[in-house]
């Protein structure tokens, strides 16, 4: 079946602009994760959604980052007032359940902040 999809695949924006990144998980998967991959920090976990439950936002890098998940499916990661250090690849993953289940990753969104 279809895997995790992310859009856009690439995004170039100017410093100070807001961006929205979208993730469509595998159908039937209740858990959804966002990660950031950058040269300096490697792969970092950002946030986790389980169904419609409110997420733990403590992993988000700053209050400029927010995420939501509508109807327990599609998720959007929003970065407000982007900074150059936000340039990275943002990866989304989903799993059938949370807690220890195998996570399947999307191709990522490559964000470049000029």
């Amino acid at each position, binding site marked *: 079946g279809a895997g995790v999809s992310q859009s856009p695949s690439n995004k170039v924006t100017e410093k100070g602009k807001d961006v929205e990144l979208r993730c469509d998980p595998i159908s039937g998967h209740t858990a959804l994760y966002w990660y950031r991959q950058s040269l300096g920090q490697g792969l970092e976990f950002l946030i986790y959604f389980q169904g419609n439950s409110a997420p733990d936002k403590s992993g988000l890098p700053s209050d400029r980052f927010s995420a939501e998940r509508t109807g327990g499916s599609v998720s959007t990661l929003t970065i407000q007032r982007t900074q150059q250090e936000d340039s990275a690849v943002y990866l989304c993953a989903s799993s059938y359940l949370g*807690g220890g289940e195998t996570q399947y990753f999307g191709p990522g969104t490559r964000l470049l902040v000029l």
Partner: protein
Amino acid sequence: AQSVTQPDIHITVSEGASLELRCNYSYGATPYLFWYVQSPGQGLQLLLKYFSGDTLVQGIKGFEAEFKRSQSSFNLRKPSVHWSDAAEYFCAVDTSYSGGGADGLTFGKGTHLIIQP
């Protein structure tokens, strides 16, 4: 907090030779253990995982990994590499257990595998 160490940033192997990529973790219990591979411009693909039971696990593309509790290690092996194996390899742990909260995966920094003809 948990951590994952992949001590080799780059490894160069001749095509047809054997491969071992090292991974050590730090955690107070046995976490779930994973190896993922990432080709240039691609997402992460799961190679194999260890949850419990047999400490030698088989994965896709001819890879295997052995969990050694005494060494807190989960090294990845392949008896004979192919040029298509050139990629970035990531070891990861998951300390959030089924039914509990989710902490996400904690990844190592990755090992870049180069295949020489």
